[in-house]
């Protein structure tokens, strides 16, 4: 079983790129792999608590909670990206972390595979 680190820079809430990331993470964890997910740029908002589920926006919070419970999934938000958007520490979804960018590089260090979703 391997470790996959996924980094998401600039995906959009309401676009399918973030959904892709979460669905891939889910499939990998189900197969027994470990997944680290780093959300930066606009993707940072994925880790904010209190997201309301609408039928027009993918509601990923539930899936993420399920993934966090397995113990084989970590989600970490970029601290600076969050602060710039007015989203502070106390607003972080339970079980998610906030670190500076070096956390992502450390996760890549121990990963077997890295999938980095850069620009939009």
């Amino acid at each position, binding site marked *: 079983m391997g470790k996959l680190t996924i980094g998401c*820079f600039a995906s959009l809430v309401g676009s399918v790129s973030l959904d892709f990331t979460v669905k891939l993470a889910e499939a990998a964890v189900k197969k027994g792999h470990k997944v680290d997910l780093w959300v930066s740029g606009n993707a940072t908002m994925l880790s904010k608590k209190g997201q309301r589920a609408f039928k027009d926006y993918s509601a990923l919070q539930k899936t993420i909670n399920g993934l966090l419970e397995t113990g084989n999934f970590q989600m970490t938000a970029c601290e600076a990206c969050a602060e710039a958007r007015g989203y502070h520490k106390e607003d972080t979804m339970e079980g998610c972390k906030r670190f500076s*960018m070096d956390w992502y*590089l450390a996760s890549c260090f121990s990963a077997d595979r890295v999938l980095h979703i850069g*620009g*939009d």
Partner: protein
Amino acid sequence: MATKRLCFVIRTLPYKIEGSRLAMTHAIASQTVEIYLEDGDLVEASVCFIADGVLNCLKNQAAMKHYGITSIEQHLKNSLLLDMKVMICKEDLEKFGISEDTIVKDAEDLGGETVAQIVPYSEIQKEMEAVDHLLFC
């Protein structure tokens, strides 16, 4: 004791999306990654500019003046100051008719010694093969 090498490949234009900016700031974060690693372990980041991405390397970006934000030029200089390996695709500069004297090649004004390498694409391909992980932005 191990070193893992990451290569950030910047292929998108600056400013409209955050891709190239975040690539630079993440690459620079390799300087502080040791706090998460065991003694002797290292992460080394390199940065390559290809395709539209070479337009990130132009000098005299007045982003601070007009928009109050750090220019990509400044990030590029910072990365050279930290002795990061920076490669810029020669063919792509030529395709856009950009002469070497109009791009950021060093951070001499900040006291830096490392220079950006203007290289054929084949050298960038070699770098991509040599590293452990690729991060396209």
